[in-house]
């Protein structure tokens, strides 16, 4: 008897006669019948169609070129050489010729592509220490256990950057040459600004300098076992592009979603002729410093040149998807129109 309500009187326990409590809130109840949804279907088909056409036109203007250099041409030798781990320290350079039929207009992006390389394996992905790469000194000296077995070397010296991801970094380099009538010209590449702004400026930092030089900061650490040079010497030309904020390292550290992927290597530098409008048609060669072994995973390596549209690189799937969807919706709409025609226009069939 304890819960006597504050209300008293004969109707004390009468429930409120409010719309909410009586479940009589005004409601919109859409009828999913042909007549009601037909306009929506036609409209949706039209929108998809327009988007599809627009995307298709955009994609038509983009260009892409892939050059597989795994064992093509003189790279065959290097490929064979890399099969033997004992030759890891030896340099190997090779060159591939290719030609561009139609000029690449506008900005040209140069990627390196890998096939069959699973950057998305769970254990591999986790094998990194973001704290270390954020420049935390403690993590620099004692890397996270996630980095195992690439956290310390045999002597117990911490590895920087630690982990399998950094260790397996792609380390081929390319020199693109354009053969004009006047002889070969090296295609100027811009190798900066490859990463997201936030990666370069927030997510990855070098450890605090405190008036020390970069090599001094990294003292007491060692390079990852597969690397040839330490992390503070990644870019021999630009001292500010070294350590944990090296663009190539950052690009590599952003793990690819699929086993076949490409990663940004550089942009075409368009300041000087003949590259002001992009890559002109003609013969090109790419000289590769061939370091990255792929035979362990039956992988392929390639160089990708591409121009981009407002919605990314060359992408034939989206326009087709939009057009096909539009067609499907249109078909459905037609069927529904027939249904609407046959089965009563405004639900009069209810009386049957």
């Amino acid at each position, binding site marked *: *008897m304890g819960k006597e309500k504050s209300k008293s*009187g*004969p*109707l004390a*326990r*009468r*429930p409120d006669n409010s719309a909410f*409590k*009586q*479940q009589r809130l*005004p*409601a*919109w*109840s859409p009828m*999913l*019948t*042909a*007549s009601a*949804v037909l306009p929506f279907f036609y409209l949706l088909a039209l929108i*998809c169609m327009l988007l599809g056409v627009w995307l298709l036109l955009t994609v038509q203007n983009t260009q892409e070129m892939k050059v597989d250099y795994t064992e093509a041409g003189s790279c065959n030798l290097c490929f064979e050489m890399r099969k033997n781990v004992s030759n890891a320290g030896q340099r190997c350079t090779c060159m591939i010729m290719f030609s561009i039929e139609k000029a690449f207009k506008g900005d040209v992006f140069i990627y390196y592509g890998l096939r069959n390389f*699973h*950057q*998305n*394996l*769970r*254990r*591999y*992905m986790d094998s*990194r*220490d*973001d704290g270390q790469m954020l420049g935390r000194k403690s993590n620099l000296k004692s890397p996270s256990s*996630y980095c195992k077995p690439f956290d310390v070397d045999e002597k117990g010296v911490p590895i920087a950057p630690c982990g*399998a991801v950094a260790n397996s970094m792609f380390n081929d380099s390319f020199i693109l040459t354009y053969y004009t009538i006047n002889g070969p010209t090296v295609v100027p590449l811009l190798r900066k600004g490859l990463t997201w702004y*936030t990666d370069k400026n*927030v*997510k990855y930092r070098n450890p605090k300098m405190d008036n020390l030089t970069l090599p001094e900061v990294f003292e007491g650490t060692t390079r990852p076992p597969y690397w040839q040079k330490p992390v503070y010497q990644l870019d021999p030309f630009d001292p500010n592009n070294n350590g944990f904020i090296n663009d190539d390292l950052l690009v590599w550290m952003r*793990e*690819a*979603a*699929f*086993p076949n*992927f*490409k*990663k940004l290597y550089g942009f075409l530098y368009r300041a000087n002729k003949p590259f002001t409008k992009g890559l002109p048609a003609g013969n090109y060669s790419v000289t590769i410093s061939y370091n990255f*072994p792929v*035979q*362990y*995973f039956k992988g392929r390596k390639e160089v990708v040149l591409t121009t981009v549209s407002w919605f*990314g*690189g060359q992408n034939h799937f*989206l326009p087709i*998807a939009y057009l096909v*969807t539009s067609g499907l*919706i249109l078909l*459905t709409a037609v069927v*529904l129109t027939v249904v*609407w025609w046959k*089965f009563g226009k405004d*639900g009069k069939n*209810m009386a049957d």
Partner: protein
Amino acid sequence: MTWRSPLALLRDAVLSQKAREKELRSLVSNLPFEGLGKSKQPNRFFKPNAIKTNKYTPLFFIPMNLYEQFHRLANVYFVGLAILNFIPVVNAFQPEVALIPICVIMFLTALKDGWEDFRRYQSDKKLNNMPCLIYSRTAKHYIERRWKDVRVGDFVKVVCNETVPADLLLLHTSDPNNVCHIETSNLDGETNLKQRNALPGLCTSNDVFEPESFNCTVVCEKPNNNLNHFKCFVEKPDKEKTGAGIESLLLRGCTVRNTEHAIGFVVYAGHETKSMLNNNGPRYKRSKLERRLNVDVFFCVLLLFIMCLIGSLGHYLWLKNLSDVPSFLVSDSKGHLDSPSLSSFYMFFTMIILLQILIPISLYVSVELVKIGQIFFILTDVDLYDEETDSQVQCRSLNITEDLGQIEYIFSDKTGTLTENKMVFRRCSIMGKDYPHKENANRLALLEETESEENVIFSQSTLSSQASRYDEDSSPVDTHRHGSRHRSKMAVNRQSSMAFSSPLETQVIPDEKLLQQISRSERSSSGISDPYMDFFLALAICNSVVVSMATTQRQRVSSPSHSHKTNNPLESFSVLVKRTGSFWKVFDSPKQNGSSTSAHKRSDDANGVQPRALDTVTLSARPAAASGDVCYEAESPDEAALVYAAKTYGFTLLARTPNSVTVRVPSGEELVFEVLDTLAFDSNRKRMSVLVRHPITGEYVLYTKGADYAIMELLGTPYAEHLSGQQKKIAADTQYHLDCYAKDGLRTLCITKKIVSSREYQSWLADRKRALAAIDGREELMMASAVQLETELTLLGATGIEDRLQESVPDTITALREAGIKVWVLTGDKPETALNIGYACRLMEEGDLVINMSCKNKVTCVSILDCTLEEVRRYHEDPRNVDTTQKISLMIDGDTLAIALSPDLQDRFLDLAKRCRSVLCCRVTPLQKSRVVKLVRDKLKVMTLAVGDGANDVNMIQVADVGIGISGQEGMQAVMASDFAITRFKHLKKLLLVHGHWCHTRLANMIIYFFYKNAAYVNLLFWYQFYCGFSGTAMIDYWLMIFFNLFFTSTPPIMFGIMDKDVSAEMLMGVPELYRTGQGSGEYNFRTFWISMLDAFYQSLVCFFVPYLAYQGSDVDIFTFGTPLNTSSLFIILLHLGIEIKSWTVVHWIIMLGSVALYFIVTLAYSAICVTCNPPSNPYWILQNQMADPMFYLICIISTVVALLPRYTFYVLKNSIAPSPLIQAKHLDRMEPSVRDMWMKEWRSLRGGTEVKESRLSTPPSPTLETSVDFYPGFGDAASFVGEDMSLNVIGD
């Protein structure tokens, strides 16, 4: 505390255990031992009165609560997964993070448990510290102590309006007759006063009870939870035993009323009291939907297993395919790589962790939340609120709301369920002469009319215009008259619910002929042994009605506003009298104002009859003035009706004590009858008797009343043998009248008398005493002794009491039948009464084929069953009857039912019964009721609902899938046993047709959706495994995955389950046929489940492969790829629900849009803040980046459209080509109300639903016309007795 050796403590513990386990306990007074050490106390082995219902102690809360929580399978699953995550070789996520969900869930549960336990602790503390009076030897009087100090063997004094602290054996009361009145509303909700008697023979001559002189031993049985049963005897030092039963026990929690104080001996204390033993928690029932749900969860487990197996197998093949060790294959710290088979074995467990949410554990929590919401809406439904009793529907079982939407069979009690259980004396037959009481019938008809009119006025609340119509003498106050009158009428009725004293029941207009007859016989035989006098004396004496003075209205603690309400009845009643004044015209007396007319008239008519005693109208109209007026408190309403009837004829019951009854006879004389014994009513004997000594003649007279079949076979000599032969066939005449009454739907009782010789009495008394003192087999002995006396009875007459049909019962039953529910009525009444009610409430209709089964032995029963079955089958196979609905009704009586329920016949009986539209079982026992329900439930595999109001329905209510109790006049036992408690039968219509349907469709759709949601989301992860070497990678950040299920997509389905409305309530009420969609497997079945699972697979395929193809070969990183996936799956999952939602209210919009907004806000914030907080997978700035990329939007749009297109199109096509009845109803819903009503009517008539008339007790059609298959030859004859008074019944129409 004195120090005691551990050994002694141990010995004590063993001894007390033994003492408690013993069947019989011997208790002595504590007083001689007062002040002695604990080991000296004689009653130390029994539990103290302090109670402790809290489960936990502060110190051990955490371990105990954890232990409790791990009893839940879901928690074990969660924790198992979390532990799995801590094993390095199989973990899928960071172990610490994986612990979060389970920790949150368990913490919240612990918080809730802790709070509840604290509340229990507080209430225990409050109870334990309540004051009470315990006798102390040192202080020589009762001193105030706390409840917790009460021990077995103490003497406790309880004063008026105080609560009894423990189970007390009543020894003494302030009442001169040593009785005590208690109210047991705290225990069973019954508010009528019950009389308890002090143990006789203990109290010495003086009024003061001396506890110190109490030197007897109380021997009582082991504590049990039966509130209506207690066995005990008190052994005096001289070995004399006195038996005592429940009538001498004051139960803990009862309140003492009308008695200044009572002194009792504590028999049971604390947890051993009957009320505490009865105090078990809420019942847990599993609904049909939940059982189905568990099957599907099992399917999910199977699916999960298969998916994990595929993952592990895939991983094995992938590893095998690698010829060498690539740099992306990370070895463990020692540079060692597991073999493919071992790592694929580990991968199996990793996959379980990764895909764990495929098992919708959160579904159980959500289902519970949804049910709470659904119950909230049922409770707040104003249509289920009863103004008269100010009570709403109660949901006692919290988890079977959706079962209400799947009912196929209803088993209903008759009395109090279909009928009002407001007993009104209608007519009687004395000495074979019928007194029809026509005026009384007229009055009832009129009263009913005015009542309904008043309701209309109230609901329209148009005050003034109507007010003047009724209140000619309208005063300025009258503008508020209607509201107050209505309210006051309710107050009257509420009062009546505890005292059975509404004017309807208290008033009887006497039959003139009978009045004359009484006055004649009074004059002639000076009121000693005249059958008429005896008849009314029997009515007045032979009952258990308690008399309380109208002026000493007891005060009820629970309703403080009561006092002001009690003034209102007279005002309302005077109005009522005025309005019903027309019936006074029947009397040829001068037209005056209501009350004075009646008083005047009756004093004219029955000269010699005391006007004051007769005048019942003045009783109600002037309670304040007539200080000598009495109120009757009866446990059963028909007893009260009979007492009021006797009072009308001048035989006023003035007082009742255990040993005497005072009756004022018409001559004004007050006769005090010494009550020698009362043989209480029980369902086996079906009668009760009172043995009194007549104050004038000094004879021992036994008055017996009971059911006619229980009485007729006990008849001995007819009354007054010396009378002429014509009168000797009284029994036959009375039987004839009884049959007539039954045809009218009246409840009949036979009244008899027996004069017991003094020698006979003495020998019987010895037997009786033996029986009373017995502990073993006491019931049997008591029963035998009662039967021994109740022989050779002399028939005085019979009474007919009307029990009116409740409001809109026929309408409700018709609607339920249209809804495809079969209604069975199980009643203890006579077949004739039952049949009449069956017609009145439209259980059966004119033109129905009524099969009447009644046979005495098995052979005939078998042959009848076979014949009937054959006939019914033929009827069904007849091509002419194909399109007509089954119009066969079965009527069976208790004896036949017992035969039909035998194992070899029950299949045939069920086969017959399921072909019948309605079944009427009469004269069935409570046990049979539950057997019938159980049989139908188990054999036919259908959902059953039992509805009843009395203790005899408890079995049935407990057995049925859904038990509904009607809180009415017969106490609360049915309500206590029920899952839902309503106040009126008509509420069943809305409860089932609207709430049942809604709850079922909502929950069913919600559950299906939940399965879909989890499967669709988890499959995204599964598809990704094909591209990451089955390594258990998740492309969505783990935190976001948790949030996704916990915040972004959890509220919409819950809201959907609580608030979605497929068809409006009006439509569901108007077209009961819509209820059929829920019957059988309902909306949630094998097909719908798998369709939605397939849809989930399809949608997840779209949701994964559209982004995959779009990003194929690009430089996208893994978490950037996961973002559009996560986003578009959010849109798909929410819009999928959007397709399912039938009506969008503002709440829907807020929650749906809120969920989307929450997703973006939380994800953006998380991506902005979290630089390294979730180490291997930092989603830093990813959504921001994506939202700046047009590709993101293009992907989200296309995958959402493609994923939802099939379902949307399917719905549109289905609704356009072959709309289900629900869709058609929804369509009608959108029309104008007038047009809608027209369509609704047309629909109902189209489906063969009959037009429903508001009909009350209508004339039953002559049974001979429609019972073409009538196997009960006697019945046809009986049915042809359509008495001249039949016309009375149709007045109400």
